[in-house]
């Protein structure tokens, strides 16, 4: 059987530094797959490898029967993978609607259709009241949601979310988590990076913990949270 998403022995080196070291994992359809790790452990690099912003040094990435690692970056989205950025990259001088429409144009060239679709998604993400605001004037929580909406507009089968909750207050965090769950319920598989484990515990089906680019644990949230290597990575050596 073809795996929905599979990374095989992925390695990325920058000069002498190994940012991602021989990672292998699979994600099955409909899952929320979490990736955690301390700052600088290679999570975002991994996303950049999947979305082809960087070329892999070695290893293979398969998605839906397609091999990704030799495709140009903009083709990844065509394959059905959407992503958000850790440091949000809104299209600053476009309105929220415009941002989302830019995503919606992937599958249509009609302004009307793109617009209807974008409005639906904006509604789905709870951004209706900001629809005509310029992206640069939005607060951070809205910007993060906007990024998700924009990625959703490309109709992804797999959504890569990079630190969606970082910098949000608890209320906003909860809203974001609610949104992520609704997206999953709508049939989109999600890989999510979080630094804060708390967020991951509630939503992830499985979690991959990495440090120094290598896997240190993989399993259910509870298993991972109790894994001594993870605790060590987060809290320091002698904590148990």
């Amino acid at each position, binding site marked *: 059987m073809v795996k929905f998403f599979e990374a095989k022995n992925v390695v990325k080196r920058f000069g002498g530094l190994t940012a991602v070291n021989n990672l292998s994992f699979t994600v099955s359809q409909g899952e929320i797959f979490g990736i955690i790790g301390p700052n600088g452990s290679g999570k975002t690099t991994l996303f950049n490898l999947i*979305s082809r912003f960087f070329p892999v040094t070695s290893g293979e990435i398969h998605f839906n029967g397609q091999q990704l690692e030799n495709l140009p*970056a*903009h083709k990844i989205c065509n394959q059905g993978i959407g992503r958000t950025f850790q440091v949000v990259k809104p299209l*600053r001088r476009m309105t929220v609607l415009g941002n989302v429409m830019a995503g919606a144009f992937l599958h249509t060239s009609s302004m009307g259709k793109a617009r209807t679709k974008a409005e639906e998604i904006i509604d789905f993400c709870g951004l209706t009241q900001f629809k005509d605001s310029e992206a640069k004037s*939005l607060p951070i929580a809205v910007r993060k949601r906007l990024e998700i909406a924009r990625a959703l507009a490309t109709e992804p089968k797999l959504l890569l979310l990079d630190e969606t909750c970082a910098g949000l207050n608890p209320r906003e965090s909860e809203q974001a988590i609610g949104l992520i769950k609704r997206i999953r319920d709508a049939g989109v598989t999600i890989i999510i990076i979080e630094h804060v484990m708390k967020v991951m515990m509630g939503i992830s089906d499985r979690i991959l913990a990495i440090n120094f680019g290598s896997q240190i644990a993989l399993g259910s949230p509870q298993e991972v949270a109790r894994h001594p290597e993870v605790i060590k990575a987060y809290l320091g050596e002698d904590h148990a």
Partner: protein
Amino acid sequence: MNKIKKLNWLFALLVLLAAIAVPWVIKAPYHLHILILVMVWATIGTAWNLLGGYTGQVSFGHAAFFGVGAYAAGLLNLHYGLSPWWGMALGPVVAALAALPIGLICFRLRGPYFALAMLALGEIFRLMFTNLTEFTNGAKGVLIMPEITSKMFFYYVGLTVLVVTLLVTYLIVHSKIGYYLVSIREDQDAATSLGIPTTFYKNVALLPSAFFTGLAGAFYMNYVAFIDPNIVFNLSNVSVMVILVVMMGGVATTWGPTIGAGIYIALGEYFRATLGSANVLVFGILVCLIIMFMPNGIIGGLETLKQKFFRSGTGLPGGGNGEVLRS
């Protein structure tokens, strides 16, 4: 929203009607001449704006396309004795063809490096057209004898060129392509993540930009009737001037380049007529002031003002945590 759109079209239609009526009101050929020049620059400005303003790829080498368009018209006449009006068909096509390899070369670079590469290419065109004397007549330039001399005729041709350019750029900008172009300007990484092939779309912006610049060049040749490489491939008088025109009017706006061209040409002409030998100096000071205080041009500046006036009341809906902190 749709109402606003209809109003916009209505406004455009009114402007067009007014423009069509102008020669029946202003009969002075000198004023028509100024207006014709304004339309030439508005066309180049609008074309440049598509690449520079909307796509964010600031070209310092649009003289290359302008010159190629003008020379296409001139050389047709020189070598084959064809009417230079055929150049209006050939010029833009040649300019667009020239843009293909240029795009392939220069879009490998970003930001100021792209600008510098375009600048170098523009200069290379100038030098090549100066040196290839067999083909281009070199520095002697190309002189034609216009068959038609009526200002009104040129006015309407110029107007048609401008209207077509405005219409096409407007349609491009307000379509999928336009959204993609602005996305590329705002954030290239984000654009890529949305499945936008950025280099391809930069070329998509470059081709019509070169096409219409070439069209303006061919029209210019027909109107002014004489060109030489130092004129049409000139760095400061064409490549830089077009950027100033757009910056003055409004970067990435529909009407900006036209307004900019109007002000630029009219003001330049006025200064020239009134200020004597200090005219370029005053003009230079004005350029500095505009860039320092109205970096997005007159339309951009007015836009900011409008926002300042209206924002204070409404604020952001549901601002909550998003209140803006200002010290």
